[in-house]
């Protein structure tokens, strides 16, 4: 008799793992409805006030606006530079591969404290004022590596024959890129951009080293944690989570439906 524990063991365990992942988010969500007053530590009763007035606590929304602005710019910079590197590296496959890969890999192999500290040392040495600009630079730097890794896998799995087919069909190299290569890389690029945005949005350590007195959302929470995080922060954390979920799932459903419609024709 074959032992048949596998079939239910994996889903059960995997399901528990997902639960583990979501428990604190559920907690954050629940406590966004807490009638908390100054500190949101214990349950004081249900209210919708926090959701009606998410900017009610001082500086929550400023820090969120900073974060959104920074993450958006970082996403654009890191996605463009990282995608270009990923494509370039695959094209130059046989040339100075080791050096290039090392340069991409090292930031991933360096803990955030070190990245943050070294950038800070650099900024201090050349006397740059810390602020939004330095945060953007710092975030872009570590996000590029993630983008390169994510996009490179996609580029490498692309059939080079497709570009040849485009050239064979009168497409100049530039047309071949925009009409064939780019659309095929796009899902990978979008995923990489999403990852870059998430990493930037959620970064605290590197930000803390290079932000001067500019607050990002995570920094605001960290600072607030010592005297009590306002429930509005929970509202924003929950809302961001839900928005991200809806955007991606919505996109997924749309593309699934389109595929089904195509298949039905």
């Amino acid at each position: 008799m074959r032992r048949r524990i596998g079939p239910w063991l994996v889903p059960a365990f995997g399901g528990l793992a997902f639960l583990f992942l979501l428990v604190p988010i559920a907690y954050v969500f629940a406590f966004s409805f807490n009638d908390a007053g100054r500190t949101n530590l214990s349950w004081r009763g249900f209210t919708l006030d926090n959701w009606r007035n998410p900017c009610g606590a001082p500086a929550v929304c400023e820090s969120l606006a900073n974060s959104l602005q920074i993450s958006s710019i970082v996403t654009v910079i890191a996605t463009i530079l990282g995608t270009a590197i990923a494509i370039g590296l695959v094209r130059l496959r046989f040339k100075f591969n080791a050096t290039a890969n090392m340069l991409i890999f090292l930031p991933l192999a360096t803990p955030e404290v070190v990245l943050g500290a070294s950038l800070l040392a650099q900024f201090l040495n050349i006397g740059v004022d810390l602020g939004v600009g330095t945060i953007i630079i710092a975030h872009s730097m570590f996000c590029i590596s993630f983008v390169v890794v994510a996009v490179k896998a996609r580029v490498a799995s692309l059939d080079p024959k497709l570009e040849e087919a485009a050239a064979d069909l009168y497409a100049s190299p530039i047309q071949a890129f925009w009409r064939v290569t780019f659309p095929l890389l796009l899902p990978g690029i979008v995923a990489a951009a999403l990852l870059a945005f998430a990493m930037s949005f959620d970064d605290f350590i590197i930000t803390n080293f290079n932000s001067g007195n500019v607050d990002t959302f995570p920094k605001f929470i960290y600072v607030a944690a010592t005297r009590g995080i306002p429930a509005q922060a929970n509202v924003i954390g929950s809302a961001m989570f839900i928005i991200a979920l809806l955007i991606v799932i919505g996109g997924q459903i749309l593309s699934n439906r389109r595929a089904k419609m195509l298949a039905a024709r």
Partner: protein
Amino acid sequence: MSLLTAPRSAKAKPEETRSASEIRADKRRGRVGYLLILPGFIFMLLFFVLPVFSLLATSLYTKPPGADIGQFVPALQFSNYAAVLGSYWPELVRSFAFALIATVAALAIGYPMAYLVAVRLRGRKLLQGILLVLIIAPFFTSFILRTQAWKQILADEGPVVAVLRAMALLPEDGRLTATAFAVVCGLTYNFLPFMTLPIYANLERLDTRLIEAGGDLYANSFTTFRTVTLPLSMPGVIAGTLLTFIPASGDYINAALLGNNQNTTMIGQVIDSRFFRVVDYPGASALSFVLMLAILFLVILYVRRFGTKELL
């Protein structure tokens, strides 16, 4: 011609025996390749490589007698290293120990998650998509907020401790927060996505027919897993463990929020406080540099031992 085809005959032959058009085609390919990587590499050079050298330089600065707080002059003060290592080696060792345990735990949790989504749910695109987003979406809640949530869930007056005490799994005065256990749990939790995603990316490409073939050849599904699936997913496991271990060993949020001040301090906390509270830039830089070298050393050792060449 093709953007994606590397110049195959690049260094194959001396130039003079190749035709002009052959050389031109190769050059065109090469030039575009360089143009593509140049901006990004300049950025990395300016904001990663140079800063690391800045860090190295700063770590050797010295404080002149009678200088103000935060004033240092360039020097080659190697004793900075001896000083910080002498004081903080326990934190360094502890950081690696915590990170190692957290990595193993994250692997134990993350692998089944990745396997469930990538292999068991293969073909069910919508469900796969939703679960994948659930892995990334916590980033948007802010990890400090989530860590803070754990702190309150596990707090002395919280529900978990109450239940554990009632079941006598925890002594009457036992607690979960402010313990090493809580810090490791926090690390495991926070870096779980970094473990799960690379393994998922690897398993997703795995040919399920191989698993079925394994199932035909062996009687036991665990044997199939051990002899077929696991070896094939090793590149994902290696990437995941590295992406978990490295940030975990430098993290200080979990230790700061879930730990105490005596036996859970991690090296990241020390670096942070030497930078911002003590304003000892050389000492903090020296510690950072040591941490970076130590991790690189461990990573190289690890990759040599288990490694695939194709790390990225």
